[in-house]
């Protein structure tokens, strides 16, 4: 063979054509790419035009916020009555006890500030000692919360948990539910996949029982039946009973979300860690769970968001959570008739918390996605 070899030459890289990049091209492609696409875009803009301006007029431009009673609102019915929310804000956020005792208001305020102070650095990538911060948030913070908000120690007057209310109660219920349900749920999910029949059956029965029972029923049972299981001397606070009920319920849901992640892990991961001589707990803690939890973040957070909103069901056992207290306020003699504002405010607060969880979970997902972690 006497053929001359041709030298391979690499062509230079070129930028993509100008008409395929930039925002004009994006709008052309995505909003007006086809006839049906154009119709949908126009329809959508029309709807925005139809509904948004009147809403803004009501909620912002014509709204009332001055004054301390309903006279101003009654005179100007074309705008929202935020005066009502302003006057009742202490009740809405902290419940009846703290609204009645303004000198004690620093307690829940401090609890919220410290919570935000612990959570914010956790959401920032570069924070050092994150593990310790998380540990403080999960272990020290609840103790701090109970002693400041609950009182009865260090000379702080006792506030009966049954008088907690508003956002404070919603927050406390959701926080306890989430913090306790996650580890319980992980154990149950592992149990459901266990090779030991007793552990497996227990997990399945537990999960299926609590998952198949409505939360309202569970709250009723926790409120009415739980005291029957304990000797007569032991008395649980109504709030604690609700917390137990919520945790039992939530752990079943979390377990199923975690199990979804566990099932997605390739068998090769277990085999590789077994081949290296790792035992069950070493495999689970170092190899399987970190990957499974990452996969199940969206569904776990989904159950947490659902839980946060479901806490308002505690109103049926007589607890005044954010939604219930908003409703009650709008039915009081002083503010009768301003339900829309009450519900809108409660809805906004719920939304802020839930949206916050959603954003944080997306951030976490991206951060833990090592496949795309290219520097």
């Amino acid at each position, binding site marked *: 063979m006497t053929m001359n070899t041709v030298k391979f030459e690499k062509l230079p890289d070129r930028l993509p054509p100008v008409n395929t990049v930039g925002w004009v091209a994006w709008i052309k492609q995505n909003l007006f790419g086809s006839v049906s696409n154009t119709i949908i875009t126009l329809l959508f803009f029309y709807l925005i035009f139809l509904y948004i301006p009147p809403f803004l007029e009501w909620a912002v431009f014509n709204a009332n916020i001055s004054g301390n009673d309903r006279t101003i609102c009654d005179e100007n019915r074309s705008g929202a009555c935020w005066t009502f929310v302003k006057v009742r804000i202490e009740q809405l956020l902290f419940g009846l006890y703290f609204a009645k005792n303004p000198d004690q208001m620093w307690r829940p305020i401090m609890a919220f500030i410290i919570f935000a102070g612990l959570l914010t650095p956790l959401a920032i990538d570069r924070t050092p000692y994150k593990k310790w911060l998380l540990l403080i948030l999960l272990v020290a913070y609840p103790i701090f919360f109970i002693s400041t908000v609950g009182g009865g120690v260090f000379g702080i007057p006792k506030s009966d948990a049954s008088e907690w209310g508003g956002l404070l109660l919603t927050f406390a219920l959701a926080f306890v539910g989430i913090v306790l349900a996650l580890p319980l749920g992980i154990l149950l999910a592992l149990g459901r996949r266990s090779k030991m029949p007793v552990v497996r059956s227990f997990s399945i029965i537990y999960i299926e029982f609590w998952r198949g029972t409505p939360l309202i029923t569970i709250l009723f049972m926790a409120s009415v039946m739980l005291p029957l299981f304990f000797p007569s001397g032991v008395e649980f606070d109504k709030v604690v009973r609700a917390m137990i009920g919520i945790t039992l319920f939530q752990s079943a849901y979390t377990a199923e979300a975690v199990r979804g992640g566990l099932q997605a892990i390739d068998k090769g991961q277990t085999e*590789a*860690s077994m*081949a*290296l001589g790792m035992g069950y707990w070493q495999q689970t803690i170092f190899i399987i769970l970190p990957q499974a939890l990452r996969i199940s973040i969206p569904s776990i957070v989904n159950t947490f968001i659902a839980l946060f909103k479901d806490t308002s069901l505690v109103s049926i056992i007589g607890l005044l959570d954010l939604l219930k207290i908003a409703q009650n306020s709008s039915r009081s003699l002083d503010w009768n008739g301003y339900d829309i504002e009450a519900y809108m405010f409660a809805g906004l607060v719920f939304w802020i918390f839930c949206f916050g969880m959603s954003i944080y979970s997306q951030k976490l997902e991206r951060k833990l996605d090592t496949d795309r972690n290219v520097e």
Partner: protein
Amino acid sequence: MTKSDSIIKISKLNKWYGKFHALKDIDLSVGRTEKIVICGPSGSGKSTLIRCINRLEVHQEGSIQVDGIELTDDIKQITEIRSDVGMVFQHFNLFPHLTVLENCSLAPIWVRKKSKVEAEEMAMQLLEKVRIPDQADKYPGQLSGGQQQRVAIARALCMQPRIMLFDEPTSALDPEMIKEVLETMIELADSGMTMIVVTHEMGFANRVADRIIFMDEGQIVEQNDPESFFKNPESDRTKLFLSQILDH
């Protein structure tokens, strides 16, 4: 062929998957520093055989002794054997959430109870040996298949095993990457490691193996040194297999 000083002794091994008889009366001894290549058609039981050696599969009859320890249900003995027997998988099975260095140092730290510094030092040495020390802080997903498989070899070696099992280590690789992995394995063989390799890379077998074992239908059909195996296969089944994989 069996050397008197054998490190693995398998006798009358039988294994079933449900009713399917996967391994039939396998007898095999492997000498210290011996290199064995196992080949055979898919479904012949070759992977199952080596996976029985570190008990990724449980056998129902017969006995397996690894370095004098009998494989039973005793979890302590299983762990002991597993930490002495390294394994490399077809699909690498690296831990995707850990960096290359963490992949290599995790088991030495938690199973061998080494200090972090010591484990990472050794991991770096072995990563240098497989020629990818510069990738130590990357995640497996950022490496090529060949690099991943070399990390997997380094990870297994970090446990300082006395035996290395390879389960079709190059079958999932692009042709251009097979060579780099085989070279690493040849170097390992030259360093005196006891190796059992399930592979279809006959060039590798010819170069490295002390003994080639041909399996079919869960049985050992034939075993011989490479020269005799390729030139004068005894069984007609072996002849057919060789003609199929060599003439293409």
